[in-house]
């Protein structure tokens, strides 16, 4: 990797990290949608942060609020139905929620980028792919058509698309799914943003293609030191690629911590439930899968107290009445680990005893990750 690249990366970082360790800080964010049916509390008091160059995985079921938080960062939440009763999103010293549209526009696509789930519908079908990539460059960098297009072709090559010059003149429907997502990545990383929000980037793709796309993201991240927020419902994806994980449930943060700790020492009943329900390679065939009973709650009528209590095996009276605060928990090794659960200790005990949550037998090289 050329030294120039590293220099560029660190310059960008120097511009944006007020505090060396925090690139983006979401603080007590609430996003409520006022609809005819009631107020949908999509995000209800969520805080998280991303450090430069790290990969934060945000995991949760559909309706957990994970996508909406990311949209809030980008300022893409439609504001008539949506409102922000509380919260700040701090980025390079500014609260993104308080910025004017023009200032936000300067950030979108340039400092913070987002890629979405379905690359077929996320690309405009009537414009050429190369043009759509060049567009983001032209908007932010005042580049002419020809140099912008040249850069677009280079980007297509960087994301591993063969025949980039020819492909740049083609339309999205002429690309395969994996290639489209690569093109979207090219578009998102064109201006070297310091933060990339990836909302279910591989969900719409075949499994083999998923791995390729993730590898591409990892490679680009290493080269450019981009921080990535990986939003997904796929625990396996997060396990392979994230540094830290945030688990969301019903618009609130359930648990957050280093990846190993989340997977091997969960402290929230929901996380424990998720992990227990996973099918594992080393699981015996006769063992039954253990799903979490019930359904995720409606965000209009969120249960009182801890939103997970109706489905929780550890639930008691206090869970029904008091919202558990997000508090630090003891873990064996590693950074800050927070969980919002009244019965963290019981969860810890259950996890330690569970065959499911045990690490896979480490191989001869001592690596404990699958």
């Amino acid at each position, binding site marked *: 990797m050329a030294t120039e690249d590293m220099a560029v990366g660190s310059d960008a970082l120097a511009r944006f990290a007020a505090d060396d360790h925090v690139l983006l800080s979401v603080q007590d964010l609430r996003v409520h949608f006022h609809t005819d049916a009631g107020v949908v509390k999509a995000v209800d008091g969520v805080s998280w942060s991303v450090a430069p160059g790290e990969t934060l995985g945000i995991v949760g079921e559909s309706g957990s609020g994970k996508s909406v938080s990311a949209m809030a960062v980008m300022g*893409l939440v439609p504001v008539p139905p949506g409102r922000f009763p509380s919260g700040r999103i701090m980025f390079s010293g500014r609260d993104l929620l308080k910025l004017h549209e023009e200032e936000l526009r300067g950030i979108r*696509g340039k400092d913070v980028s987002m890629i979405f789930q379905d690359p077929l519908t*996320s690309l*405009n079908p*009537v*414009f050429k792919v190369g043009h759509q990539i060049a567009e983001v460059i032209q*908007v*932010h960098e005042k580049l002419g058509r020809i140099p912008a297009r040249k850069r677009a072709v280079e980007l297509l090559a960087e994301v591993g698309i063969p025949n980039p010059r020819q492909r740049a003149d*083609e339309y999205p429907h002429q690309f395969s799914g994996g290639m489209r997502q690569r093109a*979207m990545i090219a578009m998102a990383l064109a201006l070297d943003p310091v933060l990339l929000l990836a909302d279910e980037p591989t969900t719409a793709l075949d499994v083999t293609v998923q791995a390729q796309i993730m590898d591409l993201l990892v490679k680009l991240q290493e080269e450019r030191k981009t921080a990535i927020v990986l939003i997904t419902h796929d625990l396996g994806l997060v396990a392979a690629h994230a540094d830290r994980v945030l688990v969301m449930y019903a618009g609130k943060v359930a648990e957050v911590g280093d990846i190993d700790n989340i997977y091997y020492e969960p402290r929230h009943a929901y996380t424990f439930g998720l992990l227990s329900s996973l099918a594992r390679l080393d699981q015996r065939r006769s063992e039954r899968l253990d799903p979490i009973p019930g359904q995720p709650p409606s965000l209009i009528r969120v249960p009182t107290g801890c939103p997970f209590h109706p489905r929780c095996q550890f639930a008691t009276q206090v869970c029904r009445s008091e919202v558990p605060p997000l508090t630090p928990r003891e873990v064996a090794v590693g950074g800050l680990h927070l969980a919002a659960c009244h019965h963290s200790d019981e969860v810890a005990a259950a996890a330690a005893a569970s065959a499911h949550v045990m690490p896979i037998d480490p191989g001869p090289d001592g690596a404990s990750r699958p």
Partner: protein
Amino acid sequence: MGKYILRRLLQMILVLIGASLILFVCLFVLPGDPIGSLAGSERVRDPVVRETLEKRYNLDKPLPVQYLTYLGNVATGDLGESFRLRRPVNDVIWEKIGNTFRLALTAIVFEIIIGVIAGIVAAVFRYSFWDVLVTVAVTLTVGFATFVTGLILQQVFALKLGWLPLSGQETPLHYILPAVTLASVSTALVARLMRGTMLEVLRADYIRTAFAKGLTKRTVILKHALRNSVIPVVTFIGIDFGTLLGGALITEVIFNWNGIGSALVTAIGAQDNPMVLGIATYSVAIFVVVNLVVDTLYGFLDPRIRLQ
């Protein structure tokens, strides 16, 4: 794309054949005495006329031959002769088509400008006063069918206010009321179609991506959204143009417009069958051809069709 056009062309030919069959049946087969319907009640007994017509249309030969003769005639532009005017239908059409064409063009221009803009405004400012205004206007205009709109406009603007002339087509001012009348229902529908399509498009994922790239709202709407929304609207307008070229019957009657529409209506009153069917043939032919052109245009506009 070539295959697409070819397919459409074949379809068009099939349709033309089918339509010509219907018209042939109407003119030659169903009326008891085709000569009667071709020559009119006055001249039907004139032996000279009978002989001319018989020869021209091969009326003594079997039906299939008659049909082919008819088809051949039509293809070469011979649409028969009006017995009221004693002139070839073709000549009459040729004379009046200019007026109809100009009127249709004016109407289309009006329709495009007002309809598209109204639709965009209604979609972008959804639920606002403008949206409500457009929606109400659309519903009312559609409900007030063309002939009602025409009469009312004529009454108010020509008669009562005297701003615009009552009928005829001499000056550009003469074009206004007829064109607006003609365009009224279509404009409403274009506006509604544009609004609906735009609303759908604005919900699309690629619009979200466009915003995520940092584009201005203006660019997103006028470039990304519009380019996708116009496709069905262009198709509609094209088809409409085909219809209008076929003769704006009601408008031409109300405003005494000397085009093929009023020629057709006069012919109906005079029971001048060849004229009626001749103009009908022309209308159908032009409508079908315009549809083909529109289809091709649609293929060009949508790259998903254009490229395999």
